[in-house]
């Protein structure tokens, strides 16, 4: 029995947040601090003829102006790409542009000033002479003959081509199919918009020649590695990177950004602590964006509804430079998920990663997996409609059965566990699916546009076995570290390489360790986000922290228990095999002799006095583990939504939403439910509102929160959430990732519902976002054109 795991413990981090005591990077004020502001390109594509910073330098309060050439001359390196499959072209990415600018927002110079307002004034005084060039923004058109080249040495703007699966078998399945569902569509660009804008601060210590960098990162160790080995050139052992409280990430704070190089460079050049805080406008044009695929897909089905083949070609927009993990997203996190929850005997997928004059695209919540699920689920819905079948029945017919795990898909992955029929049962029950369909019939009879959406989605979470990741092209292994340090009085400090930026690890990791050791949760403190305090770790993304970071802590706790058990046996003069560790009370006794019990704190202290230890046992009580998972974990979902569309305005109202997820075992149900709910909101945001839209000249049309439609409280009905639990066999806690399932499912479910509502009008498909304007126009075209 566990005392804490499985309980909705209130979060230990919350008292500081609700009192405004969060320790965010922008709050940092150091004596003598100077402020950095970045001059950014207003052009999507232009040669830099000259930069004149003299007027800026003359402004009172300005300390210096630096250009990309200054950084280059001092040996600053290119921002690296950490996922490089064979044959990839990785053009240089200088922290400040030196020859030409390649997207609106590309940095060209920085101002350093005593005051942030003065720094902004001075930015406006820098004169840059640009020679504008034609731009390309569309992932597919980037490969057209004669398209402007973003990088002269990347022909056709093609960085990589990544095929997976059996092309011949798939072609045969499609050619011989009873029916083929075809679709060409774009999965639109999204802008992550974590509420905290990125920020970076740095302090150079000349006495030890060492640098401390504070940055809003999901993975401070990765940033230190890249700063040390590639960009800043200060060796890793002289670098400390701290990511304190970080206000949301959703992927966008994984990557190594230019300002993380510039700010410490400035701090050393000027000899004073320096800080840069992004404005929201800068966030829009510098934070890595998400999605942005153009896709052509074909699903082959038999007349009775059996899936026989799936062929997918995707042009994935990489933007102007390859962001840290960008090529990973439309390849190993996308093509590999094309089997969905289904048995599809032949699958072939290929991705073209193309360079465009837009902000780099990289992982955004779900990262490749929402694109895969949206694609599969949309095709399945269309197949159901074509075959005249209920969409859930068609899915059920093709589901991987509960007794078929581990299930090897034709696209590399081996699913760990699941019970998809039971998942669907629960979703139908929770949503009252039968009642929804009956209500829909009545509504349709009355001329109302009511739709029921359903999706069954899969995620590969917890990346990844290091050997697999590196084999595919990752530059680092993807394990995680965990230290359990027991102080002489029995108080416990947990050091983790994971990073919490909203996930609540200070609570959930304490729950895990307290249960593993049998100590009160208040005696456990979780430390993360500081490379000087925690061992090298990989960080938090891909829904990996509980499964991998949590498992590293389980391994360390096992080592602590083993040492204490050996010590207790020695002290009571019994054999180790006879000892029992009671994980509810944290006591160790001889089996059947409770009077021999020794307490956790008592034993910890015995390792401090260290005067009576078994032969060969070292004093002290601390254990470190690096946990490398055996496989991904495979969470899955079945979500149902009901929407109604206003026939006159095209506006969509989400009437009801029911979510059933299988994220394996759960440490803290309250936190998992929070992740699911927040994820759904982001997923619905993609389906209905959000679009990082560019015009053909490369201007971002949705460059502020006035223009980019973020989900708000009034966009959602109360959402019903439930779970089934099929534990993952691949980690000791049986956990599957919980952070991204909601986003993956939310998008597919709401799109499904809207298209279902519009089906009676003869509208087969509309791209996301399903805005009122787009739907209104489609209704007008369908009804006036006789399509109804």
């Amino acid at each position, binding site marked *: 029995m566990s005392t804490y795991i499985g309980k909705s413990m209130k979060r230990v981090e919350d008292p500081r947040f*609700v009192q405004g005591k*969060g320790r965010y990077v922008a709050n940092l004020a150091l004596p003598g601090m100077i402020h950095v502001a970045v001059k950014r390109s207003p052009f999507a594509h232009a040669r830099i003829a000259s930069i004149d910073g003299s007027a800026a330098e003359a402004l009172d309060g300005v300390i210096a102006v630096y250009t990309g050439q200054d950084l280059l001359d001092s040996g600053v390196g290119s921002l690296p790409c950490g996922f490089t499959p064979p044959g990839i072209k990785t053009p240089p990415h200088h922290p400040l542009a030196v020859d030409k600018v390649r997207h609106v927002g590309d940095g060209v110079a920085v101002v350093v000033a005593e005051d942030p307002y003065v720094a902004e004034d001075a930015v406006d005084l820098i004169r840059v002479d640009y020679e504008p060039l034609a731009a390309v923004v569309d992932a597919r058109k980037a490969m057209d003959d004669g398209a402007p080249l973003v990088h002269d040495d990347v022909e056709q703007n093609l960085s990589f081509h990544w095929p997976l699966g059996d092309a011949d078998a798939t072609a045969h399945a499609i050619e011989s199919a009873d029916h083929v569902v075809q679709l060409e569509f774009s999965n639109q660009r999204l802008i992550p918009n974590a509420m905290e804008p990125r920020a970076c601060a740095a302090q150079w210590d000349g006495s030890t020649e060492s640098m401390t960098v504070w940055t809003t990162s999901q993975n401070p160790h990765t940033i230190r590695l890249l700063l040390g080995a590639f960009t800043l050139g200060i060796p890793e052992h002289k670098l400390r990177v701290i990511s304190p409280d970080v206000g949301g990430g959703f992927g966008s704070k994984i990557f190594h950004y230019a300002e993380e190089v510039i700010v410490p460079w400035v701090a050393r050049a000027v000899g004073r602590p320096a800080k840069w805080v992004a404005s929201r406008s800068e966030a829009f044009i510098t934070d890595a964006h998400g999605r942005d695929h153009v896709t052509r897909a074909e699903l082959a089905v038999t007349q009775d509804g059996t899936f026989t083949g799936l062929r997918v070609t995707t042009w994935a927009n990489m933007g102007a430079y390859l962001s840290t993990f960008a090529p990973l997203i439309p390849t190993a996190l996308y093509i590999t998920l094309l089997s969905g929850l289904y048995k599809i005997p032949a699958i072939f997928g290929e991705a073209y990663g193309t360079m465009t004059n837009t902000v780099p695209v990289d992982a955004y919540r779900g990262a490749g997996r929402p694109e895969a699920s949206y694609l599969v689920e949309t095709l399945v819905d269309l197949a159901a409609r074509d075959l005249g079948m209920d969409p859930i029945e068609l899915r059920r017919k093709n589901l991987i059965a509960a007794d078929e795990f581990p299930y090897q898909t034709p696209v590399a992955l081996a699913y760990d566990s699941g019970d998809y029929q039971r998942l669907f049962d629960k979703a139908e029950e929770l949503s009252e699916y039968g009642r929804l369909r009956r209500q829909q019939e009545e509504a349709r009879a009355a001329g109302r546009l009511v739709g029921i959406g359903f999706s069954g989605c899969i995620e590969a979470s917890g990346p990844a076995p290091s050997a697999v990741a590196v084999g595919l092209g990752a530059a680092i292994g993807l394990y995680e570290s965990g230290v359990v340090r027991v102080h002489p009085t029995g108080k416990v400090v947990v050091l983790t390489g994971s990073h919490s930026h909203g996930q609540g690890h200070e609570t959930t990791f304490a729950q895990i360790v307290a249960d593993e050791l049998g100590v009160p949760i208040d005696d456990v403190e979780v430390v993360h986000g500081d490379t000087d305090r925690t061992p090298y770790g990989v960080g938090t993304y891909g829904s990996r922290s509980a499964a991998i970071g949590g498992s590293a802590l389980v391994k360390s706790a096992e080592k602590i228990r083993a040492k204490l058990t050996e010590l207790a046996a020695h002290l009571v003069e019994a054999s180790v095999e006879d000892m029992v560790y009671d994980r509810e009370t944290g006591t160790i006794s001889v089996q059947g002799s409770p009077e021999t019990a020794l307490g956790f704190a008592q034993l910890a202290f015995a390792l401090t006095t260290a005067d009576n230890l078994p032969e060969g046992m070292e004093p002290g009580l601390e254990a470190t583990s690096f946990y490398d998972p055996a496989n991904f974990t495979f969470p899955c979902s079945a979500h149902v939504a009901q929407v109604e569309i206003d026939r006159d305005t095209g506006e969509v109202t989400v009437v009801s939403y029911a979510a059933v997820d299988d994220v394996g075992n759960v440490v803290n149900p309250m936190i998992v439910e929070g992740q699911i709910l927040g994820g759904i909101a982001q997923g619905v945001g993609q389906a209905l509102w959000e679009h990082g839209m560019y015009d053909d000249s490369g201007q971002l049309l949705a460059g502020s929160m006035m223009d980019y439609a973020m989900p708000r409280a009034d966009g959602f009905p109360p959402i019903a959430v439930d779970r089934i639990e099929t534990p993952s066999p691949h980690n000791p806690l049986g956990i599957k990732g919980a952070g991204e399932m909601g986003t993956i499912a939310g998008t597919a479910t709401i799109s499904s519902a809207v298209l279902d509502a519009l089906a009676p009008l003869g509208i087969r498909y509309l791209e996301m976002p399903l805005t009122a304007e787009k739907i209104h126009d489609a209704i007008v075209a369908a009804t006036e054109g006789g399509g109804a």
Partner: protein
Amino acid sequence: MGDHTIDLTVNGTTHSIDVEARMTLADALREECGLTGTHLGCEHGVCGACTVLMDGQPVRACLVFAVQCEGVEISTVEGLARDGQLHPLQQAFWDHHGLQCGFCTPGFLMLAVGALAENPDPSDEEMIEILSSNLCRCTGYQNIVKAVKAAAEHMRS
């Protein structure tokens, strides 16, 4: 150095500060008064992370100049807890998991404090409309709505 010396009264304490006319209230609170609980999420009045109260009314501190605030009572998140006791809204956000990363939380708290002072018993619809003033990217809002509802009930009892 600022052109204007003003007395800014925040949570009952008066800060005598020198500011330029263009300095926003949000920056004055954070940089001049050291009250970093007020967060800047967009600086164009959309996200509401910087919401504070001016004489009890919720305002976006990024859209107000500090020099406009002389003679006005400013309330920020730092003033909500009293004598080590969380304000009922703070407690409710904690109890109902109304926050994840915590960045938008001070703004939501101040919005709700101001709104419930004006109408202690809003309908569900009214409450959702009020809470749609601010942005949160983590929670999906459901638990924020729950928390404010629970706090409103508690504060009425």
